[in-house]
């Protein structure tokens, strides 16, 4: 059997990351139960995008275009390369802006350009036009797991030979509409503490990350996508995490089996500070690794939840492979005695062969990925 297993090289990485979690100054949070987010600051779209093109782009498109430009530099990808972008909430703000015009001016007079930008795949479309990418083009909208699911799809396309390369990414922005709804649910904290004893909710974040994935690496890879797993915790409700750690563990193992690895050297956790979400993941990790739990890194105390629909977490995993170092788990200070696992507190050098990246969504969706240092 030829090419029945394959690892897909990641040869470029671009991120527009948010600043640290801080009080929101972009919109009014008076009366809400939460007031903080990880927001992108000092982002100058003009540094990345020509002014005439900027005009047609909403913020999501701008963030994605910038991250794609950073990932690619001046490179051109081979003909037929694809695009797979993930976004949890997509173009909520543009839809709100459109409805504002609709209310003010009537259904016939809202600006057509706003409608064109109101589709969730607008960012992916702009990136394809800018870099002449005529392969597949899909925008995955599976909540917190969107970017990992996009990566799974893109790697399948490359592995089966439908595309030689792809941009894989994710983008999300913090909007007043979504923030206020999440706050009303009581899901939010002003200080996300993944796995921490005192954790009391997640904090939303925004940003974009784009990875360049290739069948044949054109430069020294940061690492390789080596495996994926997908599943669903059927005990989850619409807006919360479930409790089926056996199912979560099964998906983690499925990703490792797909990668043909028995161990990983680190876990980039999905944990974001939610009481139930962090708990089900911790128990799942203990199930899979027993007494031999690898270092666990929680990144959502830095990026916030959603932030690029998981793409910033993927970016952190590949940066760790490249730099042979694990970042600190910002926001974690005190181990929770009820959880069998705690993340690492400080950054450290680490010779990493394989890392597991978990994405466990409220609502039950689970996607796990394995990133490896070598091609076999």
């Amino acid at each position: 059997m030829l090419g029945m297993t394959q690892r897909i090289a990641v040869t470029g990485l671009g991120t527009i990351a948010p600043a640290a979690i801080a009080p929101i100054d972009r919109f009014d949070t008076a009366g809400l139960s939460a007031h903080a987010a990880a927001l992108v600051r000092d982002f100058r779209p003009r540094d990345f995008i020509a002014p005439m093109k900027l005009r047609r782009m909403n913020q999501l498109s701008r963030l994605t275009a910038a991250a794609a430009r950073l990932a690619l530099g001046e490179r051109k990808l081979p003909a037929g390369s694809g695009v797979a972008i993930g976004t949890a909430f997509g173009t909520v703000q543009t839809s709100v802006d459109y409805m504002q015009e609709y209310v003010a001016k009537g259904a016939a007079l809202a600006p057509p350009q706003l409608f064109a930008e109101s589709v969730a795949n607008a960012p992916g479309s702009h990136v394809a036009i800018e870099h002449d990418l005529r392969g597949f083009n899909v925008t995955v909208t599976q909540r917190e797991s969107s970017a990992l699911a996009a990566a799974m799809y893109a790697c399948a396309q490359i592995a089966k030979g439908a595309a030689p390369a792809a941009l894989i990414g994710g983008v999300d922005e913090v909007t007043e509409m979504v923030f206020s709804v999440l706050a009303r649910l009581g899901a939010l904290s002003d200080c996300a503490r993944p796995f921490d004893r005192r954790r009391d909710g997640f904090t939303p974040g925004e940003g974009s990350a784009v990875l360049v994935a290739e069948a044949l690496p054109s430069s020294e890879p940061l690492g390789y996508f080596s495996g994926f797993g997908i599943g669903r915790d059927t005990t989850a409700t619409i807006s919360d995490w479930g409790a089926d750690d056996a199912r979560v563990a099964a998906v983690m193992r499925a990703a490792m089996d797909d990668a043909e690895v028995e161990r990983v050297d680190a876990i980039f956790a999905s944990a974001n500070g939610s009481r139930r979400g962090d708990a089900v993941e911790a128990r799942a990790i203990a199930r899979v690794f027993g007494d031999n739990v690898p270092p666990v890194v929680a990144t959502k105390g830095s990026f916030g939840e959603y932030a690029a629909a998981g793409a910033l977490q993927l970016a952190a995993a590949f940066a760790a492979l490249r730099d042979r170092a694990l970042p600190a788990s910002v926001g974690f200070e005190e181990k929770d005695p009820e959880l069998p696992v705690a993340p690492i507190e400080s950054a450290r050098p680490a010779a990493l062969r394989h890392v597991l990246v978990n994405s466990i969504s409220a609502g039950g969706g689970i996607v796990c990925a394995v990133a490896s240092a070598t091609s076999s």
Partner: protein
Amino acid sequence: MRTPDPTIRIAVTGAGIICSIGRNKDEVWRSIRESRANIAKLTRFPGETFPTELAAEVDADVDALLPIDRRAAKRMSRSDRLAVVAASEAIAQAGAFPRERAVVSTGTSTGGLVEGEDFYFARLVRGRGRTPVSRVLQQPTSGPSDAVARAFDLGGGVLSNATACASGGAAIGMAADVLRSKHADVAIAGGTDALCRLTYSGFNVLQAVDGEPCTPFDAQRKGITLGEGAAYLVLERWDDAVARGAKILAELCGYGATCDAHHPTAPHDDGRGAEAAMRSALAEAGLEADDVDYVNAHGTGTTLNDSAESKAIAAALGTRTPASSSKSFFGHTLGAAGGVEAVITVLALMHQLAPPTLRLNEAAPECPLDYIPHTPRPMAMRAALSNTFGFGGSNVALLFRAVSS
């Protein structure tokens, strides 16, 4: 990582559909046989005025068709409900399959946007602190996959994509790869979209909507008719379907996905991306142009799509393969279209009957193909393509093959 194994055949073991011409396969197919469209006055937004007045609405009482209790239904958007109704029919047909290894893959362009609009209007009046949020929780486009997975207790995973009008096709293609990579054993794949004000208004401000029922490929065509609906296929690896004694309706033998990379809303004049998608589907299936007997076209009724698509079909298949637009029956169901039209294509193969293009009086000069005007055509159909293209230039072509009964 396991590569999607091209030697693994994908069986369609269930199909479900709801749109303006029927609440299920039997009703929909009867409408097709009888050349009966359902395009009428828009009623969903009483009191609001738009530049055009027609739509292909789902008239049925959707809640009465839901197989779940009222309390669970309350938290679901209309797009979710349509999805659950269609999925219910597909899953019932497929019989007993391992639910914990079944993934749901849905394409939708707006998800629960109409509920989001209601929420937005209510907030304007009551303020954000006093507007209940329960209905808007299903606004995101991940809602329908989550709703179907919850309603049928499916544990294999959830995938959603919002790739404009190509979403439903992309969802089915994505599911095929998941099955060929053995990340799951069964896939419920398709699309859903409920009519909402933003899209009804938006297509109008783009001047893409026909004031009369759409006339795809016609010299006088003026644009789309907006519709709503949902449809799902149940897909499995062929050997698994045979092993459990499932009835196989058709085979999904390949798909192609490309992007025009040309313009945010307009297709490339030459239909280059569409052509490439069709060729890619044929290549994946190991079939030639001559093996395709029918194309279920995207056929929206816009000047640009119908001419570009005709060129693409001619380039990929030649000018003799008949192609029809079933959007002439139930309008453009947007994110659902890929799913709805995949089910129509499967039904066409099962019945060896090609749906017609309704209201085609005179094909445009730039549309030189055989569009099967007015009446459905009984014909030997070995394989059929279903085309789905969207804003942002995404093109998906699904290739289905008939199974001998």
